């Protein structure tokens, strides 16, 4: 059947069963390959995207749930040429080892910083907990979230962009 979903501000009509995971629709139909398939059971977070501004596991989100709701993926943040603040911070801290988890990590961090640009260490740790990195760059990932938070606070003081 035809399902309409809104991704990164654009409406799409896709041919899919309503029980199809959003992740498959993003990757196979819309060619948005940032979100990754990790465990398929909501245990690793590699597939994290936003629905209505909140982080969800797209592998456990049937596309039939999304009528009238807004999906945002990492492709909706910045581009390779012009990364957004969070993406830039992950680059600057060299937070990726193999990189498989990073799109999910960035989307989870973005969801926190959108609501709270200056989280405490504790708030960052609790918020990032559902996402796993098997290479073990968690320390760099936490630094990247801190860096992004500093950039955002600075920008809000100086009235800078983003």
């Amino acid at each position, binding site marked *: 059947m035809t399902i309409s979903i809104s991704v990164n501000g654009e409406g799409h009509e896709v041919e899919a*069963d*309503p*029980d*199809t*995971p959003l992740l498959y629709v993003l990757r196979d139909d819309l060619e948005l390959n940032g979100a990754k398939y990790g465990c*398929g*059971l*909501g*245990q690793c977070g590699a597939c994290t995207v936003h*629905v*209505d501004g*909140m*982080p*969800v*596991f797209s592998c*456990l*989100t*049937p*596309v*039939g*749930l999304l009528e009238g*709701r807004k999906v945002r993926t990492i492709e909706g943040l910045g581009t390779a040429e012009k990364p957004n603040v969070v993406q830039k911070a992950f680059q600057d801290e060299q937070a990726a080892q193999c990189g498989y988890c990073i799109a999910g990590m960035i989307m989870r961090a973005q969801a926190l910083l959108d609501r709270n640009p200056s989280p405490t260490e*504790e708030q960052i*740790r*609790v918020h990032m907990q*559902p996402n796993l990195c098997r290479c073990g760059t968690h320390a760099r990932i936490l630094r990247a979230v801190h860096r992004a938070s500093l950039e955002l606070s600075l920008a809000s003081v100086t009235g800078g962009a983003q």
Partner: protein
Amino acid sequence: MKLSKRHLAIGAAFVSAMIVTGIGIAAWIVYEPALPEIARPSPSSFDRGLVAKGEQLATVGDCIVCHTAPNGAPFAGARALPTPFGTLFSNNITPDEKTGIGAWSLAAFSRAMRQGVGRDGSHLYPALPYEHFTHVSDDDLKAIYAFLMTRQPVSQQAPENQLLPGLGFRPLLAGWKLLFLRQTAFEPQANESAEWNRGKYLVDGLAHCGGCHTPRNLGGGEEKGREFAGGVAEGWNAPALDTTNPSAATWNADSLFAYLKTGSNREHSAAGGPMGPVAEGLSRLNDADVRAIAVYVASRMHPSRDGAPAAVAAEAGIDNRSAAAAAHPEADLLFEGACSGCHAPSAPMNVNGRPLLSSTSDLKADDPRNAVQTLLRGIEPPGEKGPYMPSFSNTVTDRQLAELLAYARARFTNKPAWPDLEAAVGDIRKENAE
């Protein structure tokens, strides 16, 4: 009779005397002396066997859960404890002399445990379940003291409590104790086995199961005569541990033992909410004590001791898929996409021995609260491993969640539909956000 000045004077004097006497009695009830500070005893002054015994007893009491902040040092306190009366922060019970209990004598420690009075004489809030600890024996208190005094001292002051106006005035707690604290030693029952008595001693005392599983009155005291009739803890229902438990017929000492020891039992479900850390603690307790607890609780559920469940076999494996799908066609598809990867009867979770949805007590309960909370909050593995379920709070709307639950109840149980489910979901979601 005409009131003369003399009458008025006598009356006033009488009233004054009553007030003074009242204040005197109140002061006598409230007053507790400070006990002298001691130099922190050297860890080597404690017998190692006693420390080891204390470790097991502190595990029964699960002291570490409330007395450790998230990601904080063990036993150093400062964990926020939300109550209907405001937020309390747990005390540091490491042997630090300034911020912990390093300067506390055994007498001061025992008084705190049994009477809820700090070393300095101030009354402690009943978030410390002293109405249970009052039943703990002298020897056991001594062992727990030895265990705590040999921990690493950590300097950490708990934040100020944030209570409703007036409740920060600790002398009021003396009145609370007068109403609700019954200081009685544990009395073994001669007609019961040693194992049963051990279980009752642990359950009523250190394990303080009634703290959550007994309903509380408006004053925050556990209701007398309704022990284990079921209560509420941190937004979750703590099910009844007596004959009124809707799944009582399917619990026995063996299944309770497995559930308490591993946090999950095939005939029931995984420990969710505040029960997760309890089961995690009990996983480190010796088998004999866990079994004693299970034996005692089973006897509360089956007073006639005919505990062998026959209903389990009949109930496990219910799968009314076609009827449920006909009633909730949208949810049937959503279940397939969101839930069946783990919860389909053919999914790896079932194959690996985890409970089927048709076995879970929460889906069979009269009140949907725990089922709703499981979907909204997920199940956190309490330690490094354990049962896990992701939260679906951001994934589904209230209506979708209600539909999914209505479908799951229709498909995996033979119970009637829950009424007003969507409103209940909305209410619980609001509570969680507070």
